[in-house]
């Protein structure tokens, strides 16, 4: 079958890749999808536990390996820092399902704020109005549950959410009360989790093990549960899992397909007329940089030198509280309630940009996470001994509040190839260089105090600032990884300042597309997935229209 040429090869099956695969198959194209991870079964999700899933991360990303360094002068350490999943459906398969639309100003940060020293602010090549209809499509495909008028600071929306908001748990009710006491306007976090049966998928059972877990009943919307089954049913998808793409070969300035290692480590090659890379903001630049050739000695489509650069996360100021009564943080899903009053940018606060604030159970939904985050805790608690035991006993009464705060992009924050560390196939692993811009630290510290006030207003017996390793930041320590990865192949109209154009097509290679979080020039103050999905629907429409008009070069 070596002569077989597919219409499109899509690399990655998460938010960007899953939507593209589905749309292209629906339009009649023959698609081969290459996923580096395994095909997991929902039956196994029923039995996954906190040790194997979260602590060892042995289910979703058994082979993930990265290095991290603070800056170019610092030594790198080896580990697994990105909270991403290498499996069918990508990180969505174990995501937490928060589903926001960005605010209009979040698409034009450079215009809104002007240049900032040490940051690489940029406007998106399009605005909210262009993305709005695709946000709506993503919300309906994903069955997002929310309050249409809940957030007074949200972007205008044409219609409400397809499903009603979820109920509170005790911790989100307490958070709402504290926030309201301070004059904030709390509302239910829009979640891509069914609050009633939707599109053939059942209602959530609120079992608590949601973030970092696969949903055993498909109540949580994923490309694994929606787009990939639809694409497979078309009969036009050749889905190959355990397929680690290591090179996109080129001929006459075009990519010819993909070369990959299969489950046995044997080299395979597929050929396709168009190639869509959707490996996420770590995986995509990693693959482009691995694909060095005579035509592209610095990596594929890297004439700008920006492949891998401007990698951004979010930063997460947090407050932890012990409350008088049971909080039941181990029920429901990650985040039930939020307020957005602190989100609008106001330079008078000593920093620009902002983010949403939410009650979430990231470290309170299961006991090991609570135990291992016993850092920076006030007496009588302690890291070990009787004080640790007392801390563990507080687990049922804990409340966690955190911000999803916009990080300023910095050109030196980057993904490249580690010069020493190799993966199990002998490929150079991705190396992340990341430090915080001073604006991040100013925002983080300002938010921390606001979050502590909310905890106290909610009636906390004790409250402290989160000092969770890997999440807490200061002048000397930055985040080493995050679930929210953006910007490392930014899109824009100027080929000198961006990797892909407004349609997410490479400026240099006409049949190469990047459709994932890596194209986002800035990251907004909300979880990014709905934006990645909406942009993928937008690109898919364009791609299909061009293909049907025989206009794809």
């Amino acid at each position, binding site marked *: 079958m070596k002569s077989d040429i597919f219409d499109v090869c899509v690399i990655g099956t998460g938010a960007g890749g899953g939507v593209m695969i589905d749309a292209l198959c629906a339009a009649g194209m023959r698609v081969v999808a290459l996923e580096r991870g395994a095909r997991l079964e929902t039956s196994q*999700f*029923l*039995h996954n*536990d*906190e*040790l194997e899933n979260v*602590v*060892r*991360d*042995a289910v979703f990303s*058994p082979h993930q390996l990265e290095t991290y360094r603070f800056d170019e002068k610092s030594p790198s*350490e*080896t*580990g*697994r*820092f*990105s*909270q991403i999943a290498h499996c069918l459906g990508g990180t969505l398969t174990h995501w937490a399902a928060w589903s926001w639309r960005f605010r209009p100003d979040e698409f034009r940060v450079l215009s809104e704020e002007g240049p900032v020293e040490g940051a690489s602010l940029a406007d998106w090549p399009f605005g909210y109005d262009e993305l709005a209809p695709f946000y709506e499509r993503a919300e309906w495909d994903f069955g997002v549950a929310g309050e249409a008028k809940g957030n007074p600071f949200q972007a205008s929306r044409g219609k409400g959410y397809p499903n009603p908001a979820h*109920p*509170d*748990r*005790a911790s989100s*009710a307490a958070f709402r009360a504290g926030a309201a006491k301070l004059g904030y306007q709390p509302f239910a976090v829009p979640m891509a989790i069914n609050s009633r049966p939707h599109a053939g998928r059942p209602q959530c*059972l*609120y*079992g*608590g*093990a949601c973030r970092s*877990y696969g949903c*055993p009943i498909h109540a949580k919307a994923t490309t694994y549960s929606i787009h990939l089954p639809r694409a497979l049913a078309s009969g036009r998808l050749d889905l190959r899992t355990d397929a680690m793409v290591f090179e996109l070969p080129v001929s006459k300035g075009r990519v010819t397909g993909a070369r990959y290692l299969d489950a046995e480590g044997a080299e395979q090659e597929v050929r396709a007329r168009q190639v869509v890379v959707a490996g996420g903001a770590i995986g995509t630049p990693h693959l482009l940089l691995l694909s060095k050739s005579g035509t592209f000695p610095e990596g594929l489509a890297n004439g700008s030198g920006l492949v891998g650069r401007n990698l951004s996360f979010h930063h997460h100021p947090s407050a932890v509280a012990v409350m008088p009564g*049971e*909080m*039941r943080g*181990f*029920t*429901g899903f990650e985040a039930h309630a939020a307020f957005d009053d602190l989100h609008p940018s106001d330079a008078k606060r000593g920093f620009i940009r902002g983010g949403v604030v939410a009650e979430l159970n*990231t*470290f309170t939904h299961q*006991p*090991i*996470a*609570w*135990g*291992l985050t*016993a850092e920076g805790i006030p007496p009588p608690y302690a*890291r*070990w*001994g*009787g004080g*640790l*035991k007392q801390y*563990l*006993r507080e*687990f049922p009464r804990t409340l966690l509040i955190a911000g999803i705060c916009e990080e300023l992009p910095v050109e030196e924050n980057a993904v490249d190839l580690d010069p020493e560390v190799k993966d199990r196939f002998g490929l150079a692993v991705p190396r992340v260089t990341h430090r915080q811009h001073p604006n991040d630290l100013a925002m983080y510290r300002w938010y921390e105090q606001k979050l502590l006030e909310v905890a106290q207003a909610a009636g906390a017996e004790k409250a402290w600032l989160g000092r*969770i*390793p*890997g*999440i807490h930041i200061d002048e000397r320590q930055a985040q080493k*990884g995050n*679930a929210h990865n953006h910007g490392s192949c930014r899109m824009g109209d100027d080929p000198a300042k961006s990797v892909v154009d407004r349609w997410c097509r490479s400026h240099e290679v006409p049949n190469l597309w990047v459709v994932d979080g890596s194209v986002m020039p800035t990251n907004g103050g909300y979880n990014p997935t709905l934006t990645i999905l909406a942009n993928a629907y937008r690109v898919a429409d364009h791609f299909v229209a061009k293909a049907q008009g025989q206009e794809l070069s």
Partner: protein
Amino acid sequence: MKHEHLSGFSRRDFLVRGSLYGGSLWIAANLPRPKALQAAQASREPAVLSKHEWATVEAICARIVPTDHEPGAREADCVNFIDKALANEDAQALPLYRLGVEGIDAVAQQRSEQSFVALEPAEQDAVLVVLESGQAPGWPAGPIPAQVFFETARAHTIIGFLADPKYGGNRGFAGWRVAGYPGPRHHLGGYSRAQMLGEAPISPVWEPAKKPAKNT
């Protein structure tokens, strides 16, 4: 060579970190291996630790999560969890434990001329305090700093106390009882709205399900 069992390991091997939400925990290498844990935990016999190593690690665990009016790490059998992990998924950390036990004994000898297990609890705590600080007189020079051993043992104790009992710790759900965690509910139908709000009780997984009230 005194530490022959360390040949082939570099310090870097021990510092491959686990990730908990992007954090960098002091968990030695967690590169997955074929899982034999669940079979191994069927036996409480030491799989890889010697009798003295077992006793020493058990004593350390018992100071990390001490016993009071409720069970601690000793009753939860955290040492069994660690032994089985070192025999399987965490095999890469076994040399660290071997050297760590030698090291903690050397520190205890220098302070009190006794092995760690023979010390009174308060004196054991004093030894752990210096290990945690990284300034541990008597700790042998070598690839493993005292702090790395302490932090690894601490993290493993917490995990053993609170992980599913099938891994060999959390015996009798001791850890979950202390933490007030009723256990996973994926397979039990989740929670009702009243349970989420704290308005209805929750039966822990280790208690037999209550029979539904008969219709009258």
